[in-house]
């Protein structure tokens, strides 16, 4: 199969959806002429014209709110927020409007809208352009939260997100845009709430999201040299969350490590850990461990930023620690 990047896979998914359905429109800052800060919408302005690919002013609350209205009245907008950090200026639109309309009008209004954001440190973009607070959206009922880790998942999940009648927070990862992987040329959908076992193993379960999946896959090879057989589960969507796949894996291995780039406190990993503790505690041979970002802003200093990012250097000691529990 041909290999394309995560950014190209998203681009392809959007293009397919726009071809198929003229109600699909793109809005965002620098997404038209420039093609989007990570080139996800590159070429789409030329193909679909300025009525369907609109560059917006720097006014997130206005264009997100506008899209909610458009979605309620029959459009299927896909909005790009340049960095997840900027959702803070349109939080009322997201949490009080986008997430609530369907519920508050007894199901008579729908918001078939995709809000694209990206997370992840590692690009020297400092504390206001590097955050990973996607857990915030997982906390809000009414929002679907999608977290692709591979080009294949990115395309299939984006097509599903656009066709879904509910508001979707589509969380991309900066460090993954350039990652290549096999992606079918034809259109396909990946259902929400279906985790993917990225690696099968007996000894230890790592539930990993986004870039943590790739980091976990790399460290699993290291661990296998030490005789440790790691299983890696990628939930792919945080809401809905595929509990059963996680539970089955924990039941098999008895050890759980949750790896997510969000902050440790009240994060995705905290939620998954609590869920397993509530329902699967009697299968645990060891404490549940989390590998996450520290509870500090992302540093600008490159050495500090490298230290900050949770990766192989943090995963391996955690794996070894869990394996001490025989």
């Amino acid at each position, binding site marked *: 199969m041909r290999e394309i990047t995560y950014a190209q896979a998203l681009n392809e998914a959007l293009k397919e959806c726009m071809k198929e359905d003229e109600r699909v429109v793109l809005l965002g800052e620098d997404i038209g002429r420039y093609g989007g800060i990570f080139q996800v919408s590159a070429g789409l302005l030329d193909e679909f014209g300025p009525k369907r690919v609109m560059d917006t002013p720097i006014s997130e609350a206005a264009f997100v709110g506008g899209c909610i209205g458009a979605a309620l009245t029959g459009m299927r907008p896909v909005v790009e927020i340049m960095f997840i950090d900027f959702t803070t200026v349109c939080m009322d639109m997201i949490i009080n409007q986008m997430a609530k309309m369907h519920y508050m009008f007894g199901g008579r209004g729908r918001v078939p809208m995709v809000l694209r954001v990206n997370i992840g440190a590692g690009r020297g973009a400092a504390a206001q352009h590097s955050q990973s607070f996607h857990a915030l959206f997982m906390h809000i009922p009414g929002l679907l939260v999608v977290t692709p880790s591979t080009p294949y998942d990115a395309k299939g999940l984006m097509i599903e997100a656009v066709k879904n009648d509910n508001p979707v927070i589509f969380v991309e990862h900066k460090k993954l845009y350039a990652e290549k992987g096999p992606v079918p040329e034809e259109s396909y959908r990946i259902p929400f709430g279906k985790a993917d076992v990225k690696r099968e193993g007996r000894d230890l379960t790592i539930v990993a999201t986004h870039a943590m999946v790739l980091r976990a896959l790399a460290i699993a090879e290291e661990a296998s040299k030490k005789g440790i057989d790691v299983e890696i589960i990628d939930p792919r969507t945080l809401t809905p969350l595929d509990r059963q796949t996680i539970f089955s894996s924990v039941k098999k291995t008895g050890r759980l490590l949750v790896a997510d780039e969000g902050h440790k406190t009240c994060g995705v990993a905290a939620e998954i850990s609590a869920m397993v503790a509530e329902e699967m505690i009697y299968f645990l*041979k060891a404490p549940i461990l989390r590998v996450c970002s520290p509870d500090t802003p992302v540093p600008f200093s490159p050495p500090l930023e490298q230290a900050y990012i949770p990766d192989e250097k943090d995963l391996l000691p955690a794996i070894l620690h869990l394996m001490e529990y025989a």
Partner: protein
Amino acid sequence: MIEKALDSYNAGEEKEPVATEVVLPMLGITVEKGKIVEWVKKEGDPVEKGEIIFIVEVEKATTEVESPASGILAKILVPEGVEVPVLTVVGIITEPGEKFSEDAVPQAQSPSSVDSVTMVTSQENASMAADGIDIIKAVPAARRMAREHDIHLRDISGTGPEGLIFARDVETMIARKARPSEVRASTLARRLAEKERVPLDEVTGSGVRDRIMRQDVQAFLKEPETTEMPLGTVIPMSTVRRVIARRMSESAFTAPHIYFFTDACLDPLLDFRSVVLPDLEKRFDIRVSINDFVIKAVALNIMDFPILNAQVNGDEIHIMPEVNVGLAVAMPEGLIVPAIRNADRSGLINIARQRIDLVQRARQGKLTLEEMERGTFTVSSLAQYDITHFTAILNPPQSGILSIGKTDEKLVMEKGQVTVKRVAQIGLSVDHRIIDGAMAADFLQNLKWKLERPSSTFLTV
């Protein structure tokens, strides 16, 4: 208390207070913890020696505990509802008028009150935290596996830090249970055991996962057969002895005993056993003893006379649902009575297996409370002594106990002829509150009949 302590500090010339420690008593040979459900006396109350001072709960059974001294209950160290290990000092009694100082409060677990018996009986368990909180540390999966396999966590030595029990430790235990005959011992331990003829299965291992080490065999060799008791010495009662003393007096003075004796001709049973023994040994690798036959016969007889399986509970007579026959085992520290479960429904091989396992673990001090408390009838045998018959005190709350004397060759008149028979005298003690003489006589007579006709008695086993 701080005020009092200061008082005591200021009044330097006052004599050192002589405080009596109130400890949570040993309530069974393997009971490791208990919970005070009620302090009958409150701080500051005067108490008399022998008065009920608190009520303790162990595995749902409550026991009243008497004050060890007269004086003032000066301090309650362990409040109601908190579970603590046995022998924990739970309170302090001072003499009336005496100042009480906090300095007199001993360490939470006073080693001075741990006597030699408890050293033998209480299993070394690293997870008995020194802070007095008795939680056996185990990972959740280990707890589940132990529960599923009916294993007590306290019987498992954890290999993790501070004795933490890993899932693997339980797996090892499960595997070991499947092969009970295998004794884990170091090479040096085996060599020494062979040289000194020490049966390894009677030695308690102190190594990883109870592996028997050389020093364990050495310790076993040093264990005195009898405690030295020179004339004129005063020996404080061990906790085990105190429990026995309390239970025996309770039984003797609450249950009016009546006694019955009969002769049983054991020739048919002894012959029967010698016929089946080689085959059973070959097939099951188990040596069935005469006691096993007696236990089985007693259990079958209880099915004919269920009142002998009864216990008095207030104004009610509870006929117990299971027939669990206890077997009195003499130990240097005192008598203990583990019970063979469902002896009425168990085959002889199963009874023998249970007996061997229970006796062995009794010697290692590894019985569970449940195994010692589940008995519904007891068999006590002094057949290996030169004793023709004896009376036995009921093992409360049971209502019947069988006492078996030695088997002797006796001249017996049969159909006008003098013949030689091997005869044992069996005795029965019952609780006259609920069992009358005629019933007891009937029971004993029928038991005799069963023992004398082994081929019909054990036909179906």
